[in-house]
């Protein structure tokens, strides 16, 4: 896992540093409204894909959603996280303000599409049937996804929303932002590691 460097100025044992700059609080949307139609379109495609129950649309939705989810988790946890840890506080805040609202819409959409299309694909292909030869691998994928879901829903998503509310304050508290961003990036890293297990399982299933 990466390390999120905590500036000396952020630690309580050091002399006080100035709070997050007031410039950091210019207006931004916690939930980017411009993205909502896109989410609606994607969810509409998901409903249509499940309704028609054909191999190609379900495979498309599952693979595209899963690839997006995996890439975002790995990139956040292992590439962006370490970079973020080494930025100055104003740069970190500025970056967080740009990134996190997008994550509010992106991640739940990717996860919903991947799981719902994946389940329907499994029903269509018969791979979720307990008589399937590699059923143990399927159950393993349920467990991996289940653990990722609990981490994402219990830690990652609340931290994502809370950091945006903190940044909306006239005087955001750097310690709160630091704490929540650390939680966000660490959990993204943990789910990134679990995504590697997902890749192992899915490639095994696809090649059998």
């Amino acid at each position, binding site marked *: 896992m990466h390390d999120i460097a905590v500036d000396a*100025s*952020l*630690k*309580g*044992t*050091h002399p*006080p*540093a*100035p*709070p997050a700059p007031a410039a950091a609080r210019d207006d931004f949307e916690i*939930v980017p409204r411009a993205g909502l139609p896109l989410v609606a379109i994607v*969810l509409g495609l*998901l*409903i249509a894909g*499940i*309704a028609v*129950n054909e191999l190609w649309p379900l495979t498309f939705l599952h693979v595209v959603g899963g690839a997006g989810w995996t890439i975002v988790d790995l990139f956040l946890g292992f590439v962006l996280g370490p970079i973020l840890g080494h930025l100055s506080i104003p740069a970190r805040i500025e970056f967080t303000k740009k990134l996190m609202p997008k994550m509010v819409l992106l991640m*739940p959409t990717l996860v*919903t599409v991947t*799981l*719902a299309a994946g*389940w*329907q694909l499994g*029903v269509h292909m018969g791979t*979720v*049937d*307990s008589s399937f030869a590699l*059923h143990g691998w*399927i*159950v393993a994928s*349920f*467990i991996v996804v*289940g*653990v990722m*879901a*609990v981490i994402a*829903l*219990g*830690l990652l*998503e*609340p*931290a994502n*929303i*809370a950091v945006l*509310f*903190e940044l909306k*304050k*006239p*005087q955001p*508290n*750097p*310690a*709160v932002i630091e*704490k929540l961003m650390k939680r966000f990036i660490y959990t993204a890293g943990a789910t990134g590691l679990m995504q590697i297990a997902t890749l192992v399982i899915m490639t095994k299933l696809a090649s059998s």
Partner: protein
Amino acid sequence: MSALAEPAAPPHGDTGERPLPPVTPLAMTSLALIVAGGIYLSAHIPKHVPLTPAIVLLAASALLLVTNLLLLYRVSGFPWGRFFDVAKWALLGYTIIAGMIEYAFLRNHLKGGALVVLTLSLVVFAVHVPVLIGFTVARFYKPETELAPSAA
């Protein structure tokens, strides 16, 4: 029109949190129980399996949800306004997600006890996640750090 007073900067290095009940660990345990029940049921499809383990897991999960709400209710001065501001929108979002999952169940002709257990599990999920999000935002809420109308 009143001017907006600039609130004081928060003390440095201090998140300003006060002791609160363990809402996050309880919620994560509740979600884990639901997930375990879902995995138990889906791992046996299409065989008929006893519903008792899934019902026990669901009941334990629901109990944790109620416990969490009671613990929060007992916190004096908890910023419920901020909590509901956030939780209501999260509830809308997670209701849509739960609805999508329910649609997939119905599309695959799931019925009987399994459908009831999974539907109730989705209800617990769709309520507990917004509670957790609302709590995480509200725990850092400090009225004195928000914009307030100036006395001038």
